[in-house]
């Protein structure tokens, strides 16, 4: 039946030290070519994928890669029918590339001329063309010239057992793709972010689009050999997505993505060279996934840890400012030292949270404990509190005089904005409202919990 490739070899085998060094330092000519080829492929995929990710077309490569199968099958049958060798690599890759381009046109046509959305168009093109490919492979099974055994390598890749000439093809084409991307970097950037602007500047947007798509098809087709048609998609998506966590600059993102791609390619190729039974493609992809996970956590632009830390810092700053203002207001109404019970009534905070805030304020030197149940603002705390209260009241007065909001309603709005008023804005408020600089004006409305 259709069972072409059975993986019934043997389990993993660990290499000895001599083998280890040989592969790692790429002493074999063959290993050297394969490792270099796959690394450069990773680099090219990372750079091309960066543009695709930013254009929100990351999965277009999925449709392209599945669509190459019928191209390969048809090329095999045609070459065999015309009396050639069905497995001539150039012909197979040409067929794959033509069908890859066809798939892109189908996706664009379906989204432009029907009401189907891009995800549906992708899924349709991918599945129908892949089905066609399976049907072609089924036909090839019938042929006298031999079975399709050589063709299934395109589904799973076979970097480890690659011939030098095939590895050379990969190396050269990946270099060409990387070079084209470098030369057209500015143009691709423009097309990526603002097609309309690019068109008004006189760039041939349609052609640039086409060149970018051809690059995608190129990476996919070349990658088929190395990692197979499903995993080549990962090389185009994962490194750019990982790079996005580190930077907001397109050029740096492309560099990082290319670097991550190259590193995963290098590791994948060497590891699978070391352990005879470890498939190349999956190792490359899992290396990339690992680096994605690390970037997701640690990336210093959009990484999770950085974002969480920034959030925690913000929450702390806001809490501290709330505490200082509450204490300042109580002090104004004559509480000095301030009993913690009175402080509790100022805001809806739990006793635990208030205690924690007070402890942190003591550590900063803003607050000193007078007794077990009462605290007092220090000199330094008083100054800090005065700034916050001033921001708060300036905004309140502004809302009352310039936005016609009732004095009883301004407290909450000012509460939200007092933490983010910058020095320049405060200065302008002071000028507009003709308030004395560097002193907190009296509150324009009765303070909660003041009268007792």
């Amino acid at each position, binding site marked *: 039946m259709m069972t072409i490739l059975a993986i019934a070899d043997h389990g993993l085998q660990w290499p000895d030290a001599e083998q280890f060094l040989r592969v790692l330092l790429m002493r074999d000519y063959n290993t050297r070519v394969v490792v270099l080829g796959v690394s450069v492929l990773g680099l090219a995929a990372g750079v091309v994928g960066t543009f695709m990710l930013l254009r929100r077309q990351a999965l277009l490569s999925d449709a392209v890669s599945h669509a190459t199968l019928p191209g390969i099958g048809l090329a095999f049958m045609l070459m065999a029918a015309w009396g050639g060798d069905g497995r001539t690599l150039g012909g197979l890759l040409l067929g794959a590339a033509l069908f890859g381009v066809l798939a892109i046109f189908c996706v664009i046509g379906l989204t432009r001329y029907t009401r189907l959305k891009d995800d549906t168009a992708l899924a349709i093109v991918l599945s129908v063309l892949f089905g*066609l490919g399976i*049907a072609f492979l089924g036909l090839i099974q019938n042929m006298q010239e031999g079975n399709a055994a050589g063709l299934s390598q395109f589904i799973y890749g076979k970097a480890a057992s690659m011939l030098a000439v095939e590895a050379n093809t990969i190396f050269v084409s990946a270099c060409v793709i990387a070079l084209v991307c470098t030369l057209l970097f500015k143009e691709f950037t423009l097309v990526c972010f603002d097609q309309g602007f690019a068109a008004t500047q006189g760039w041939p947007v349609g052609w640039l689009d086409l060149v970018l798509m051809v690059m995608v098809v190129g990476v996919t087709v070349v990658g088929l050999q190395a990692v197979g048609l499903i995993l080549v998609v990962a090389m185009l998506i994962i490194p750019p997505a990982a790079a996005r966590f580190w930077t907001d600059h397109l050029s740096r993102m492309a560099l990082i993505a290319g670097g991550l791609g190259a590193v995963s390619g290098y590791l994948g190729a060497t590891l699978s060279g070391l352990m005879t039974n470890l498939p190349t493609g999956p190792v490359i992809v899992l290396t990339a996934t690992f680096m994605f996970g690390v970037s997701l956590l640690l990336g210093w632009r959009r990484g999770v840890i950085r974002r969480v830390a920034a959030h925690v810092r913000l929450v702390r700053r806001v809490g501290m400012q709330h505490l200082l203002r509450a204490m300042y207001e109580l002090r104004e109404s004559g509480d000095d030292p301030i009993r913690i019970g009175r402080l509790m009534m100022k805001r809806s905070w739990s006793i635990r949270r208030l205690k924690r805030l007070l402890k942190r304020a003591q550590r900063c030197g803003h607050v000193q404990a007078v007794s077990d149940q009462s605290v007092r603002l220090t000199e330094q705390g008083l100054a800090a509190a005065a700034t916050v209260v001033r921001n708060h009241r300036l905004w309140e007065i502004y809302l009352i005089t310039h936005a016609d909001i009732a004095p009883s309603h301004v407290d909450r709005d000012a509460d939200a904005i007092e933490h983010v008023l910058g020095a320049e804005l405060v200065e302008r408020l002071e000028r507009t409202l003709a308030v004395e600089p560097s002193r907190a004006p009296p509150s324009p409305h009765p303070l909660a919990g003041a009268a007792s």
Partner: protein
Amino acid sequence: MNGLNWTDTDTWIVVVGFLAAAACGLPGCYLVLRRMSLMGDAISHAVLPGLAIAFLVTGSRASWPMFLGAAVVGVLTAVFTQWIEKIGRVEATASLGIVFTSLFALGLILLRMTADAVDLDPDCVLYGAIELTPLDTIALWGWDVPRAAVVNGSMLLVNAAFIVVFYKELKISSFDPQLATTVGVSASFMHYALMGLIAATVVAAFESVGSILVIAMIVVPGAVGHLLTDRLSIMLLISVVVAALSAALGHLGAIALPPLIPGGEFIDTSTAGMMAVAAGALLVLAVAAGPRYGVVSRWIGRLRLSLRVAEQDILAMLWRTEEWSGGAQTSLNRKHIMEALALGPWSSWAVLTGLARRALVRQDAAGFSLTRAGRDQARDLVRTHRLWETYLARYLHVPIDQLHLSAERLEHATDERLQKALSEKIGSPRLDPQGKQIPPARD
């Protein structure tokens, strides 16, 4: 071709294909509507590690552990995708791509580790062996029914029951999740229920018929339905019909088409692959010939509109020529009409022939002129045109040199009632802003 050799086996293959396709197609409709069509593709690749782990743990190829392992990983795919999208703020399709390729890679390595003893073959998972399903039968009420038919049939029943029971909830949470939440339907519960169902369906189907059929049948039947109708219930029905047609046509194509290829060495090909191709062909048909959203019908609609506009323009032009020449009957030749209205030779011919056939214009040696019926209609058009000019000048203060173009567009879309209302609104004047007479209404 020496006659088609159709046996019971072929019937069973079609039945199994239909059951699997319909089971996938029904929930697939919701994926198409929710813009998650790639979920089928993703899940069917991602379940590989689930299969491998189930095998590693139990050490057998029994169906239940495999099914469970795959279904768990299928749901995890949806969960991980959601996480990466939310926590990492990665775009939805990209995070789907990251998750399923990584899981697939993991699955391949796990398979390689188990490979010592197993014939758990990724190709088998990918292509499936729908041709072999009739061989594996179980007894059901005294009948020998293929196991795959029972599995996929029950999945179809489960899916249909789920959709019938939660029809309203699924509908509202697919089209407007916020509204669903405000009226008390948990959109996220429906989301994960649907994902779980999809995962189970995908796993049940591809274990028997192969993932390629699954990926195609998740999306194509729903997409065809989406192209043909705006009603969800009809879309669901269409998806079942498409599933049946592609199963039958696909298998027919797999056994009947290859012998027709010159060379004579081809006997048959993959049924699953041909079913996907048949579904694709049905989609192309829907794209081309769909009654409302089809490319052809939209083209015809536009063509008819432009012909009607040209028709009305010709009538009005003939009437204005008569007006200039003081009411005497005048003729215009075709070349003149073509030039004045910028019509091509083909469309001017079509329009003039149509007008002559309905006896609105007559053709003589001098060219085309209005008949009595044509004159009535033309006068009406010019009346509408000049009423609009008056209205636009008076109420919208359109400058006088731009009146004509605006009125030209509006006159084609104005019916009798609107014309009457317009005339009443502006007080039935006799002259338009340019001082031309507004012809009286038809009585």
